[in-house]
């Protein structure tokens, strides 16, 4: 097992390098003179020169890449112009908030999605199945940002059950219940689409598995039906569900950008959008590389989970 994890970690190195190359290439797409693009056309020559030196733009591209990479490996992602602080500090702080939001949503969509799929399959064509199928259809068609806005209208403005936005109350608060009450709406809005996708997939995976011979064997042994469905069938279905959970995690992370905007959540996504609008490119670059790297690591964890679940995968 340890060997397998190590192998997967090593195989991630070229992917991580690839990510830095891609981000680097995209950033060199900036039309015209990057220094002017960043500072605007009224920049003083000193500032232009300073930027060029900071970004290493006076050196050849390959050299620039390696300098940038070397700095990042030492934890130096550059300095944010608009915030006037090291990029890495800002990103780490914001990523924490994103992790709370996206992590909660991921857990929600995994649990709700798989459960809905299992119930739907176990009660195929029944009332529960029809209700779930209908809800799922709505869920995967509503844009998360629109859903978030409608939730604010209903639960925060009309019913006044939950706070409108933010991560903590401005006065007082700051404790866990405060965080949870702020987290409920954005986490639900963010998980809606993924829940639908996972529920659909879990339903069909369960239906596929329930027709297998080994399910008949389990029944022939006299295993109680609840255990047949929640044990034998679900275990086998998880083999095809888990990779999709990994993919959906990427979509949850993506969707968090919109949700962070709608709910004023102080996360990386909102930071990136603000950085783009203020042309703070080093912040964009650092944020993108950092989050992408985290996602790659997360996917390795998914692979490891998969190999724990399925003994047929050679470890």
């Amino acid at each position, binding site marked *: 097992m340890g060997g397998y994890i190590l192998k997967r970690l090593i195989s991630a190195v*070229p*992917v991580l390098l*690839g*990510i830095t*190359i*891609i*981000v680097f290439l995209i*950033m*060199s*797409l900036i039309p015209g003179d990057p220094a002017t693009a960043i500072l605007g056309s009224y920049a003083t020559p000193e500032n232009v020169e300073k930027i060029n030196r900071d970004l290493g733009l006076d050196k050849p591209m390959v050299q620039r890449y390696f300098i940038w990479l070397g700095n990042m490996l030492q934890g130096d992602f550059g300095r944010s112009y608009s915030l006037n602080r090291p990029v890495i500090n800002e990103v780490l702080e914001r990523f924490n908030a994103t992790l709370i939001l996206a992590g909660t949503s991921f857990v929600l969509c995994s649990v709700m999605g798989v459960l809905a799929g299992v119930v739907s399959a176990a009660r195929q064509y029944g009332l529960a199945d029809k209700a779930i199928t209908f809800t799922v*259809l709505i869920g995967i*068609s*509503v*844009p998360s940002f*629109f859903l978030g*806005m*409608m939730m*604010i209208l209903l639960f925060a403005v009309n019913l006044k059950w939950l706070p409108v936005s933010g991560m903590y109350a401005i006065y007082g608060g700051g404790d866990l219940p405060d965080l949870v009450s702020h987290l409920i709406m954005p986490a639900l809005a963010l998980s809606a689409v993924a829940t639908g996708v996972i529920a659909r997939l879990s339903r069909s995976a*369960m*239906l*596929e598995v329930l*027709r*297998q*011979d*080994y*399910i*008949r*064997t*389990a*029944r*022939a*042994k*006299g*295993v*109680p*039906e609840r255990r047949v469905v929640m044990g034998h069938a679900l*275990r*086998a279905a998880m*083999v095809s569900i888990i990779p999709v959970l990994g993919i959906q995690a*990427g*979509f949850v992370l*993506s*969707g968090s*950008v*919109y949700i962070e*905007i709608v709910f004023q959540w102080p996360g990386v996504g909102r930071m*990136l*959008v603000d*950085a*783009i*609008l203020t042309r703070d490119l080093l912040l*964009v*670059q650092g944020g*993108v590389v950092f989050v*992408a790297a985290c*996602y790659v690591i997360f996917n390795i964890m998914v692979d490891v989970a998969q190999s724990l*679940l*399925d*003994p*047929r995968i050679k470890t």
Partner: protein
Amino acid sequence: MIAFLKLLFRNRLAAAGALVLTAIVLVVLLTPVLPLQNPDATATADRFQKPFSQGHLLGTDHLGRDLLSRLLHGTRLSLAVGVAAALIAATIGSAIGIVAGYFGGRIDNVIMRGVDMLMAFPYILLALAIVAALGPGLMNALIAVAAVNVPFFARNIRGVTVGLAGREFIDAARLAGMGHSRIILTELLPNVLPVIIIAMSTTVGWMILETAGLSFLGLGSQPPQADLGSMLGEARSALISHPHTSVVPGLMIFLIVMSINLLGDGVRDALDPRLKSGALSRPRATTLVDRKGDIPERTDDLLAIQELETEFRVGRRTYRAVGGVTLSVRPGECLGVIGESGSGKSVTALSVMGLVASPPGVIAGGAVRFQGEDLVGAPYETLRQKRGDRVAYIFQDPLSTLHPLYRVGRQLAEAIQSHHRISDRQARDRAIGLLRDVRIPNPESRIDNYPHEMSGGMRQRVGIAMALANEPDVIIADEPTTALDVTVQAQILSLLQDLRRDRGLAIIFITHDFGVVGQLCDRLAVMYAGRIVEEGPTDDVLESPAHPYTARLIACVPELGGGRRELAAIPGLPPVVDDLPPGCAFAPRCDKAQAACRQGVIPLEGQDTRAVRCLYPETDLSGKEVAR
């Protein structure tokens, strides 16, 4: 194509999706000629008019602009951008995929590595990076969305191309001296095009949503021009005071995405032939029972199958897989059931414990009595307590009948613990003992194997051990040795023989192999088209078969050391059991058939244990040849 559309629109949801989408597209195409107000004309005095107010059907936004007009123009823009992004992504992605798939080798390797890298990103990071570099704007958002979706097309199309590139017509084109570009354009592209179009139709809704999202963030279309996303983005600041400005564009996005989803699901279902037959139904925990007619009286046999009728109801057709079968076993007895594939022998066996997959299986008549108690229609819990405890099964092909993800020890222990409250430790010890009983070497270490780590013979023994776990009274073995080679087969048969002698186990042994039957079974029943056509003590039936079908079956078996002789295959195929002709089901294949054979019901008749369902049997049942 027409058949496909018919199939598609039979799906009511898909038809509704198509209808809504067509309506939206039509309205949007007509927008420039409709009598609408200027979408960008501001009138701050009229700001935030409610829907249905004078002159503004949907009201006005924060600058007093007509929402209906903005909505239609916005939808037009959103759809156009989404479709354009889809076209660009499809073109570039497919080109990359075709090149990678066609040339293969190192080119393929390098390209696909790059595609994998791009797919390692959560899509929005890539899109944000591109927009950051190019600057906000609708055109740049379009480029970003298209770029993000290129890898998806590249990977899909490459897969299809790799399959096609190895086919003969590509080789032929190459031999005919065509250049690479000509082969790609004239031979490959036409074959890949349908896949590209399907991939596009499934992603276009997604791309509309993504561009709307970027605009919502303020990174796409810039004021005063508005697509649906930026309308929603601008309305957000007035969400609480004037919700209608948000609801209008939001609902439109929802409608578009929903109708595209419905249509896409319909297309997928119409293309997936598995769904047409309804084969993806979940089998219930017990077979459905829908008994007509009387329930037969109880007997004192250990297990008695009485006039059992099991059907498969698929759509309007009914396949009578088992048409009134009566069988019984006493303790220590072995009954062989023999017949060709599709004769109904497995369905008979599975009906005993209600294990016939249902839907479509239905037990339509008769009874199954274990120690006199009728199990057909018994409550689930009664049946479950008997399953594996009193009546156990051994199935064919243990690779698919053992759970691939559980260790065999756990599967064995579970068989015991489903019926007895014992500790995991005790169950494990018992499982090791069982593996030893079926002569698996090193049971202490084998118990922690997964099924795929064992050989076929070994797995079959595990299957047998599982059936023995609770020392059942009856074992139903459904072709347990068919998948094994002869030496293993012989070992397993002798194992079953010993168990029968030592434990007084009754066995129903289902097979199509006369050799196996001769070794193991006391009595024999021959099945054809869901009915028993002959039964009797094994030796009698084998030495002097009475039914022409039995005789022909035995004649098909090559005899070892018997010298060369004519092996008489039976002409024709067994009948399909949804529309059986009256009379003898074997008549169409029988060379002795006469007019009387094709009329009325022919009963199973005989004395004592010997019986045959034939008007002109080969022997009278005392074993003498019938003189003709």
